[in-house]
């Protein structure tokens, strides 16, 4: 073999090998993701098109993702304490989790409703429900923080909530569990369900400027289970539709006993009529107890007020307010199309999807085409309200969203797929596998009068083997689809936090420009604010020690504190003096029986700490704020109860003591 040939061959061989390797390497990350998947790729430094506001299920929080990338931006603590931010741990935020049952630091958060004006997203607030201890929350979309929590009386399992009307007039809260009412003696045998258990739907008004929620009225209903809901819109504005199951009123083994009847109901509520009855004085005041918690951004403090009265409308006094539409087999989702004409009810055990027509419903009511009554409420003949049925769509239909182009998309739990069908003729157009038991689905603007379309996100209940396994519990998951073409195309799998139920998505452009960057220090009305280091101090009130403390890169003031005694309750009121975006400071102290506090620029938050022993207790800033973050620390000295150590505090002035031979710590402690 000649030398030159060897060289050529070597060159060829290496060339081939190199080419081989190169073909494995992506030219760009985009081409690596490949055809459909590249549609979800957002290059480093680029922004997503949509915010996806996703319920956290049993983590009690709300998560914010970017679409189409699926990147997680923020977890907003709502009904659960958050050790990361100090929400529910700081003295200012504890009242947010107050209820008539006392402090409830967890809930089960299922659905999201974004505020609307004229049927379209207005980008002001996101509303979220708490199932377990019935509550509603309002999240401010300029801060992505929980601004308000309202407890719902006469309710148990606030599942059919928080669905919203087209001008955010009301959000609703309908009870999953019917129960004896709050002012009744609830100490009754469970098998007296049919006599003693009642349902309840709350209409919660939203103040158009402040967003503040108030229970405007409740409607007393038969003792069914309410599942989901949607407001009418456009031509059906003024109506609300609720899916009901367990019309059998079973109180045990609902797996069998709530499926006995062929049909349950969709309840149609004429809330404009309800408003008229309320004006006409048909409402009755009922004694109840519920908490209303509001966070004030000027005082940086939440207050909790216990309210004791609710206005109730009884359908017996208010004819033409409620109607029932028979609906096959335990309806789950009841979704209204963008025009407001069609009400799509998914019987989760049904073999078809009934689509009701608002126009036909109105005619049936006018012509009194009823098949009878259920607890005094007229039951409309099924066929009279029915536009048609989507035949054999799949197994286990749950929820429907709309793209604004005349198409509906229904999730199928049992057959693990999404089915696209046309509203005009109810024909199935396409189906796509989600593989893993889908629950809700979301199209940006899908529940509004003007869907933004483009993408669809599936929130799945099972992820067996879809991701790297992590022991007995696997990640929760979502899947992203491109819905711009005739065929739906899966473009991304992404893991989620909590158990995602429902979500909404809103164009990034609607929220990006209105984000709060800092809180102005001069507007800080907190009673313990320090608007500068000169205002810091330590004061004793009995066994309470209040520390007016500030944080700024890179020191805490004061950072040397002495004179605290065993048994003292120390309140660190930390004001973050920064006026610079994304520079929070945190505070933690050894042995604290709660979490850190994380304080935004210009904000004041309070960490409570009890001195349980003598000694030196270091404290420090927990959020990596600067190059000298690790220097941002201090010491607190605790002396025995009754000792005479004077209350001293300082930063930078407590100079080293002159060493005195013969004195050591052990001696000091004996004294």
């Amino acid at each position, binding site marked *: 073999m000649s030398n030159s040939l060897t060289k050529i061959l070597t060159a060829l061989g290496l060339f081939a090998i190199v080419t081989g390797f190169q073909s494995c390497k992506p030219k760009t990350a985009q081409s690596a993701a490949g055809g459909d998947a590249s549609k979800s790729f957002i290059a480093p430094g680029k922004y997503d098109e949509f915010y996806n506001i996703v319920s956290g299920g049993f983590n009690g929080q709300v998560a914010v993702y970017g679409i189409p990338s699926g990147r997680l931006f923020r977890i907003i603590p709502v009904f659960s304490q958050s050790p990361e931010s100090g929400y529910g741990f700081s003295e200012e935020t504890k009242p947010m989790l107050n209820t008539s049952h006392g402090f409830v630091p967890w809930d089960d958060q299922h659905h999201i409703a974004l505020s609307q004006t004229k049927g379209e997203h207005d980008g002001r607030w996101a509303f979220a429900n708490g199932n377990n201890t019935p509550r509603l929350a309002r999240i401010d979309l300029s801060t992505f923080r929980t601004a308000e929590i309202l407890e719902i009386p006469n309710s148990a399992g606030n599942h059919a909530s928080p669905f919203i009307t087209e001008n955010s007039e009301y959000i609703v809260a309908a009870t999953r569990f019917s129960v004896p009412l709050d002012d009744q003696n609830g100490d009754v045998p469970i098998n007296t369900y049919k006599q003693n258990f009642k349902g309840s739907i709350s209409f919660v008004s939203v103040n158009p400027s402040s967003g503040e929620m108030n229970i405007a009225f409740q409607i007393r209903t038969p003792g069914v289970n309410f599942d989901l809901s949607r407001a009418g819109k456009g031509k059906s504005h003024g109506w609300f539709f609720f899916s009901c199951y367990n019309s059998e009123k079973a109180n045990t083994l609902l797996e069998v006993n709530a499926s006995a009847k062929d049909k349950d109901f969709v309840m149609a509520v004429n809330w404009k009529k309800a408003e008229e009855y309320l004006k006409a004085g048909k409402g009755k005041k009922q004694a109840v107890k519920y908490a209303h918690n509001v966070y004030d951004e000027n005082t940086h403090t939440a207050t909790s007020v216990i309210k004791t009265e609710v206005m109730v409308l009884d359908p017996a006094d208010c004819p033409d307010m409620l109607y029932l539409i028979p609906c096959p087999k335990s309806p789950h989702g009841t979704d209204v199309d963008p025009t407001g004409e069609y009400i799509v009810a998914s019987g989760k055990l049904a073999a078809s999807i009934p689509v009701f027509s608002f126009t036909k419903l109105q005619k049936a009511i006018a012509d009194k085409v009823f098949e009878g009554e259920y607890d005094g409420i007229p039951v409309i003949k099924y066929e009279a309200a029915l536009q048609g049925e989507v035949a054999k769509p799949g197994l286990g239909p749950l929820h429907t969203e709309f793209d604004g182009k005349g198409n509906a998309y229904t999730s199928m739990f*049992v057959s693990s797929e999404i089915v696209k069908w046309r509203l005009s003729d109810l024909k199935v157009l396409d189906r796509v596998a989600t593989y893993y038991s889908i629950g809700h689905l979301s199209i940006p603007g899908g529940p509004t009068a003007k869907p933004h379309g483009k993408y669809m996100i599936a929130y799945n209940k099972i992820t067996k083997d879809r991701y790297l396994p992590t022991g007995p519990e696997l990640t929760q998951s979502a899947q992203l689809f491109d819905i711009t073409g005739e065929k739906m195309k899966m473009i991304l799998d992404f893991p989620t936090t909590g158990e995602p139920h429902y979500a909404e998505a809103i164009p990034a452009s609607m929220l990006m420009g209105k984000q709060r960057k800092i809180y102005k220090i001069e507007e800080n009305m907190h009673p313990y604010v320090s608007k500068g280091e000169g205002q810091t101090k330590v004061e004793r009130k009995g066994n309470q020690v209040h520390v007016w403390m500030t944080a700024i890169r890179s020191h805490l003031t004061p950072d040397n504190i002495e004179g605290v005694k065993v048994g003292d309750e120390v309140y660190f009121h930390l004001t973050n003096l920064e006026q610079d975006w994304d520079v929070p400071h945190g505070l933690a102290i050894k042995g604290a029986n709660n979490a850190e506090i994380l304080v935004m620029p210009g904000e004041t938050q309070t960490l409570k700490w009890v001195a349980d022993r003598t000694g030196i207790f270091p404290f420090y800033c927990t959020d990596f704020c600067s190059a000298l973050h690790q220097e941002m620390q201090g010491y607190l000295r605790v002396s025995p109860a009754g000792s005479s150590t004077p209350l001293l505090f300082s930063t930078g002035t407590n100079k080293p003591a002159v060493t005195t031979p013969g004195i050591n710590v052990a001696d000091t402690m004996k004294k």
Partner: protein
Amino acid sequence: MKYLLNIVFGVSTILLGSCNETSTKTGEIVGTSETTVKGGQGSVKDDESAKDVVKIAISSKDHTTLVAAIKQAELVDALSNAGPFTVFAPTNAAFDKLPKETLESLMKNENKAKLQDILQYHVYVGSLKIDWMEDGQTLNQVNGGNISISKKDGKVIINNSATIIASIPAANGIIHVIDAVLLPPSE
């Protein structure tokens, strides 16, 4: 020389070949797959968990016809779902009671919808023990049709024609083995 060439081409082919690999299976570790992994809950590899209704049927030598029908009807993934399901599972002998042509015809691709309808008529969403079934009870099946339950002398009979001869709990529901195929009432 030739040997060297072979090695060179061999190596590069392997490399190129490995890059062109586009079909991936569930469970494979891949960094830059270009295709979406297909295969739902039926393809989950798990020998540790309790068996679901499909896996139990597959492991029964008396249900080979049913299993073949479930596969033909593409119901494996659906029945591997969380459920819960009550599956009324006719034995091979039960299927043998049907005219041979009927069964053969149902297994043809053009009759898949009919086969799905029949099989879905054998499934109820909900896990029903025999103790929870009552004489005279009606159950609405996955295909939309109803079956009737009668209880006589300790025996449970479906549609007055099929008797439950065994019950096997599954991870995602329960299987009641029956001695006759249930046929949906003609519409």
